[in-house]
């Protein structure tokens, strides 16, 4: 071979060999970038599993998306989700385990509010950012620097939209006497928090205000009371299970209030599955919804249709996704896994995701907001504020079976 051809040959061979090695190089580069571990617990079994499982799906779908594109800060994410069996106790120790034994880089939020509130304290102690639904107003008044409700599920804000809607009604049409039953736990009590004032604004008298311990053995005595008191508005500040029992008791006792407010549970698909037509016309609140006009919501609806054959994305699937998205934006905005930097970023720039744009204050909360929902024809519709309304509200509630 002549000198030049040999040089050519060697160059080509060199380039060829280099090309062959390239994938090898990029493989080793990826292999040496360890995944970012995100850990925590959720109620995958137990009283709150119905919801916990949807939150988990939201988290996992987010992780899937992130790993399918550029990862977080260029690294894949790995979720470590323990099952706290709906017990606060376990939520506390499992989060501690994730922090001290698994040494996770980031935390994921728990459910429901009682567990989240307890976990907020743990996260604060270890100085790690904790994005979750929060544990209602009380939990955000403790001066925690690392907890964020993004968005929060704020019991105290829950019925705000419903109260505004009632105020907008002709006074002659409004209910006059309200009966409230409240699950005796942090969530129920928080939702009940805004009740007295809200009702007073529409001149509705609160004639019954009972608490009940979970699990609720039977809703009949409570509903019976409300019926005997001629309450034409019924407020059930509870969860899915007791909510279902309450509706059934109302039907059994033929109690027909004009308006039923339900705390939690009327937004998950199981509500309509369990109750069928009886589940209709129940009004509730939320901080997120599949019909909201924010970026990314429609894509998630699509995912729900394809994967689970549902009409729209379930509420808590959206929440799970939203919380992870908020964390992601915080990390990317800060450009690192430094918890203080992330917290700082969330307070100055905030986030802009499927729950809308929000900047967080000293307490870790966005400005107060609430959307009001009503189940109509088996579908969860938005009825307040007017600019997001998707269906005319049905009021008064038609009697059972008609």
């Amino acid at each position, binding site marked *: 071979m002549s000198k030049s051809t040999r040089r050519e040959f060697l160059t080509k061979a060199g380039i060829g060999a280099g090309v062959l090695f390239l994938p090898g190089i990029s493989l080793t580069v990826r292999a040496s970038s360890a995944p970012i571990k995100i850990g925590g617990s959720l109620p995958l079994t137990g*009283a709150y599993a119905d919801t916990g499982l949807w939150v988990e799906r939201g988290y996992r779908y987010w992780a899937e998306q992130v790993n399918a594109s550029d990862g977080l800060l260029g690294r894949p994410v790995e979720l470590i989700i323990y099952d706290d069996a709906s017990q606060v106790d376990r939520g506390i120790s499992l989060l501690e385990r994730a922090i001290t034994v698994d040494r996770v880089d980031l935390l994921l939020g728990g459910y429901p509010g009682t567990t989240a509130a307890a976990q907020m304290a743990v996260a604060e102690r270890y100085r790690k950012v904790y994005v979750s639904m929060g544990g209602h107003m009380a939990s955000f008044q403790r001066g925690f620097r690392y907890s964020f409700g993004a968005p929060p599920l704020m019991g105290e804000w829950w019925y705000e939209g419903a109260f505004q809607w009632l105020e907008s009604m002709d006074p002659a049409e409004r209910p006059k006497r309200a009966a409230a039953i409240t699950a005796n736990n942090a969530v129920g009590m928080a939702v009940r928090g805004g009740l007295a004032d809200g009702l007073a604004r529409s001149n509705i008298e609160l004639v019954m205000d009972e608490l009940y311990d979970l699990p609720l053995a039977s809703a009949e005595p409570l509903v019976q009371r409300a019926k*005997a008191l001629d309450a034409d508005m019924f407020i059930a500040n509870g969860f899915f299970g007791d909510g279902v029992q309450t509706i059934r008791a109302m039907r059994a*006792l033929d109690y027909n209030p004009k308006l039923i407010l339900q705390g939690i549970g009327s937004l998950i698909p199981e509500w309509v599955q369990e109750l069928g037509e009886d589940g209709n016309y129940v009004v509730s609140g939320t901080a997120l919804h599949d019909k909201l006009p924010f970026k990314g919501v429609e894509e998630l609806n699509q995912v729900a249709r394809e994967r689970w054959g549902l009409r729209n994305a379930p509420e808590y699937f959206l929440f799970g996704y939203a919380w992870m998205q908020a964390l992601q934006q915080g990390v990317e905005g800060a450009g690192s896994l430094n918890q203080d930097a992330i917290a700082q970023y969330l307070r100055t720039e905030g986030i802009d995701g499927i729950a809308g744009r929000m900047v967080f204050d000293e307490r870790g909360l966005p400005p107060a907001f609430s959307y009001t929902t009503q189940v109509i024809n088996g579908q969860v519709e938005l009825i307040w504020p007017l600019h997001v309304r998707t269906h005319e509200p049905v009021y008064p509630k038609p009697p059972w079976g008609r």
Partner: protein
Amino acid sequence: MLVEVVQAVVTGLLIGLTFAVLAVGFSLIWGTTGVVNIAHSAFAVLAAFLSLVASRQWGLDPIAALVGLVPLFFILGVVLHEVLIKVAARRTKELGLASMIFTFGLASFMENGMAYVWGPGPRVLNTAYTGAAVHLLGISIPLTHAYGALLGLATIGLLYGFLYHTFPGKAVRAVWQQRDGAALCGIPLHRVTALTYGVSIASASVAGVAMALIYSFTPATYMVWLVNVFLIVIVGGVGSLLGAAAAGLIVGLVSSLSVLVMPFVWTNLALFGLLILVLLVRPSGLLKR
């Protein structure tokens, strides 16, 4: 107001009958063998779960499921006797106290087993008549309560007939009253005791279904039901079938009427308070023969 009280009385009597069935089986075992079977209500909860399964898997109405459950639980009762009670009777000197511990262990075992299989969350039985009711003069009688009470009544009636009008039943009563005397008369103690356990646990299964028609339940619910059972047995006197029935009605009434006079969350306390009161004042039973 009157309507509310009448409604509470009606509901109270209905649920009282349901509680009475649960108490009767418990009382039977305590009376005849001195064993305090903490797991009695755990068996009831188990029956409730099984009827739930029957309802979900095969669409069987829980009452229909009893056709299969009652014999099954009868066998479970006999097994309980053979495997645990006989051994315990032989090996321990204070059967009453020892029985408390090992039946507590059994109950805990069952509770967690159920939680493992079905999860600890609250369950409700869904039947064709859930949510339906009969309305009479402004009083609502939910069908679930009515059927539960009828089941209770039927079972207590059957038990009464068994104990007083059949030979094996009379043998059970003989052992109950005078163990040694019964043996002297040639009654096969071992077989009769086994029979007693079978009957007791079988009645627990009926009670479980009846309770589940009315109340939501979790694996841990057995403890709440047990406290009610204990109250009934103490009030009615250990070993009295009719006493248990009457006491059941009383407890049901207290439970139901207390809702009218105190906040809902304190109503359980009323029952607990009543239990402690009775224990301190008349532990031998208010309705002792």
